[in-house]
């Protein structure tokens, strides 16, 4: 198992944790009658995401953002691994990505400004650098 694959597995688990961090407060705030319904907008008066507390909505946005990041990171890790291009550099990028995405969650939830955006940029750059390393 390459270090990149280990980081990818942790990133997947991080997204599971992010799911729970969002879903538990959302269910407590909205009630299971709403969350287990088919969530028809006309019956619930709009999107459920507009009815949760600001912090839960931030955790929801953080989770959605990580889906986008995770898809690109998965691509980078899998291609680097399959083409046998794993190096110290790509491993460092993978851990930088993971560290950035872990920090991104409290940064969003607690409104660390401008750190959230900088942390996001670290994770994004690490992914792009891995993709470029896979091409060379």
């Amino acid at each position, binding site marked *: 198992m390459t270090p990149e694959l280990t980081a990818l597995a942790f990133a997947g688990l991080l997204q599971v944790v992010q799911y729970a961090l969002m879903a538990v407060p959302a269910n407590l705030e909205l009630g299971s009658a709403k969350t287990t319904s088919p969530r028809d907008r006309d019956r619930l008066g709009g999107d459920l995401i*507009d009815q949760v507390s*600001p912090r839960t*909505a*931030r955790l929801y*946005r953080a989770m959605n953002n990580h*889906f*986008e990041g995770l*898809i*690109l990171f*998965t*691509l*980078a890790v*899998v*291609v680097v691994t*399959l*083409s046998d291009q794993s190096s110290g550099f790509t491993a460092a990028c993978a851990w930088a990505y993971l560290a950035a995405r872990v920090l991104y969650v409290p940064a*969003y939830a607690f*409104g660390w*400004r*401008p750190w*959230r*955006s900088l942390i996001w940029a670290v994770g*994004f750059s690490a*992914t*792009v650098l891995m*993709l*470029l390393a*896979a*091409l060379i």
Partner: protein
Amino acid sequence: MFTDELSILVLYGLLVALTVLLQTTGAMGQLGMGYLLSSRDESREAAGMTARIERALNNSVVALTLVAPAILILNVRDAFSDTSLMTAQIFLAARVIYLPAYAFGITGLRTLAWLSGFAATVVLYLLAL
């Protein structure tokens, strides 16, 4: 660089990353740096070309999620062929056309590009089976 399916997949990943940067740059101008750096508790929507690039980005991420497994299955099964290479090249070309077609609102061309990319993805799955 365009001669094997995995490189084409990586190039498409870089195209998606470029779309993220274009969308963020547009949002900086429209919504303001202060808003982007904030926790975005109030919802602000971009308009015009930035909104189009945002929709193109969402569509590109979905397309990536769909095409990546097909190419990875082909790789793991050692099933790459001239046909799969050409199909992957068509996919990438279609998605390269899709982005400006959406950004500049070229109706018809955008749909045609999307359809070509989608059809290429289906063919890659059929080849992977």
